[in-house]
């Protein structure tokens, strides 16, 4: 597995991740793909999905009020 490629994935945008996933799937859908090659694609794809999910911090955020000295407090809506 190409570790470098996976690591660089953390820098990419979700859109770029989706493009990579699309490429991996296209590769996997090739008639003559070998099982090792397919597993490699699979591992890369699953890693990309993990990274994509971690890019979206699935915690609802509170609105913050920013003051001139750059401190924040919760905004009472």
């Amino acid at each position, binding site marked *: 597995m190409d570790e470098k490629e996976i690591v660089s994935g953390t820098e990419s*945008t*979700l*859109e770029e991740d*989706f493009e990579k*996933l699309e490429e*991996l*799937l296209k590769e*996997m*859908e090739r008639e003559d*793909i070998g*099982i090792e090659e*397919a*597993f490699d*694609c*699979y591992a890369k*794809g*699953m890693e*990309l*999905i993990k990274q*994509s*999910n971690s*890019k*979206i*911090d*699935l*915690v*609802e*955020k509170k*609105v*913050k*009020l*920013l*003051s*001139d000295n*750059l401190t*924040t407090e919760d*905004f009472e*809506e």
Partner: protein
Amino acid sequence: MSVYTVEQLNNYILSMFRNDYLLHDVSVRGEISNCKYHSSGHIYFTLKDAASNLSCVMFASNASKLKFTLENGMEAEVRGSVENYVRDGKYQLYAKSVIKGDAGNLAVRFEELKKRLREEGLFDEDIKQPIPKEVKKLGIVTASTGAAVRDIISISKRRNPYVELILYPAQVQGEGAKESIVKGIDALTQYGVDVIIVGRGGGSMEDLWAFNEEEVAQAIFNCPIPVISAVGHETDFTIADFVADLRAPTPSAAAELAVSEIGPVLDAIEDYSERIYYTMDRIIRLRRMESEQFKKRILLASPKQKINAKRMECARFEDKFSGSMQEILKSRKNMLSLYIERMKRVSVLDRLNGGLAYVSDENHKRMTSVGQFEEGKNFELRLKDGVVHAQTVTVTRDDLCKKED
């Protein structure tokens, strides 16, 4: 020639002023001086410029509507009627409203600033920054109360509740508004956000004026973070709109432009996950099937398999042989029993048992015809229990058995 009283003349002059199309509703620009707030609520002041002075009075009923305090040295545009004060025989401007600064000339200033900033390149399309698609931190510069901030927050949250909203509560109109907006842009830049929305809800041209100030335009222009302007309604255009990286027609629209919907993104990730999984599963099943087929072919080609095949062939032959052997034996046995039956039928012993005799000559040669006999010739009669040695007496030929022959 008629002679009038002073009052009559002054009243005549008053009526002339009142009938004049210009003097009964006029706007005059100048600097305020000799400003006096009377205890009655009236304001007395002089409007002046470099060459001339004009007495002004603002009655309490109008003065109470003023949102700011008139001060000496203040540039102002005063609107009212010019009338003659009969008691003193003095004309003065009866002020109904005052606009501070040269704000009265807002439209002209707007066009001038727009032209200049356009020439300076602040509106150039090719230097506008794209709005990032995946905004995690959204900065907002607007008033902390009112429809604008509520709309931005509710639409952002509806589209993506995971986006962090940082609000700089800015003063968006009146004295100090432009400074406050500039501070907000700077503070959010230092804090670090992905996009900044700068704006406010609808209002009059004066209300929106802070967004036409050069300081605000420069702050937006120099902001390293993409800025979306959202000032007033769709029909309101401000300098901020021209200089911003993107103009949103309303604060709600700004939130929609800044925050992309998270639902489809999460669906896409889920979808990819499933597709990758099932594609891999399919490949594994396919390859397994192929390897099963190879296994079968290899087994078929192995020496063991060949030996087995030969062995099977041998067994088959063996079966075949043994089968035919059995057949042969069986048919032979049948034949034998047939022979035995036939033998039985022709058996001499049986006939002897039935009382017949076997006739033979002295040399044990079988004699079956009278022709073999001669008178005096010896012959033997074998019966079931012994042999009789006899001699031929006479021979008589008859044809008793001729038919059977």
